[in-house]
């Protein structure tokens, strides 16, 4: 079972809202591999702040519109 991070995101939705942008196109805009975009979307990888900001910039939205940090219900 894949390990998921607490960082969730709405990249899939944002891609759809931006002309059904492909993962490859987003990856090219940000400068990462398509596999990394897939891993981020699936919650298997938390990107660096720099990549996170770059993704938000591609969609023209603030960082918190793309990423959110899940509340720790066990704490």
């Amino acid at each position, binding site marked *: 079972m*894949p390990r998921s991070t607490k960082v969730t995101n709405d990249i899939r939705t944002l891609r759809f809202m931006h002309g059904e942008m492909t993962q490859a196109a987003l990856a090219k805009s940000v400068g*990462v*591999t*398509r596999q990394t975009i897939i891993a981020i979307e699936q919650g298997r990888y938390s*990107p*660096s702040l720099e990549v996170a900001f770059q993704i938000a910039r591609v969609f023209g939205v603030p960082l918190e519109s793309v990423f959110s940090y899940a509340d720790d219900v066990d704490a």
Partner: protein
Amino acid sequence: MSMQQRTVWASLIAFILVGIVYAAVMIPRTIGSSPEAISWVWPMGIAMGSIVVVIIAGVIVSTIGGAISATVRGEEPEFEEGDERDKQIENYGDAKGLSVGSFGALGAIILAMNDVDPFWIAQLLFAVGLLGGIVGAALKLRAYSRGL
């Protein structure tokens, strides 16, 4: 699949393949022979060279195979360089592999302290080096599929 991920796959195959062949060559030589009489320098040197050759060949074959496969599917072939995720996975796997290798170094020191024949010290270091490579590559592939 990025070039780094192809290299990890090729490394895992190379370490396992060369390890099996080397063991198949050396184990029969050690049975009933004294360490001084065993010819091991050339086989080990060839094994080390073979690892490099198999990794390079593996990357080339998988890249060409991937490009052909993508073309057949009507997709554009991917020749992606690695990114920050590849680098993090590489560092993670290398650190784990080196920690395995450090046990081999400790074992080699203990053997040397006890005047054990260099043959056994070399075999230990080579075996643990292979094991460290296998562990590191396996953990990298696990990180690629399941996340860090």
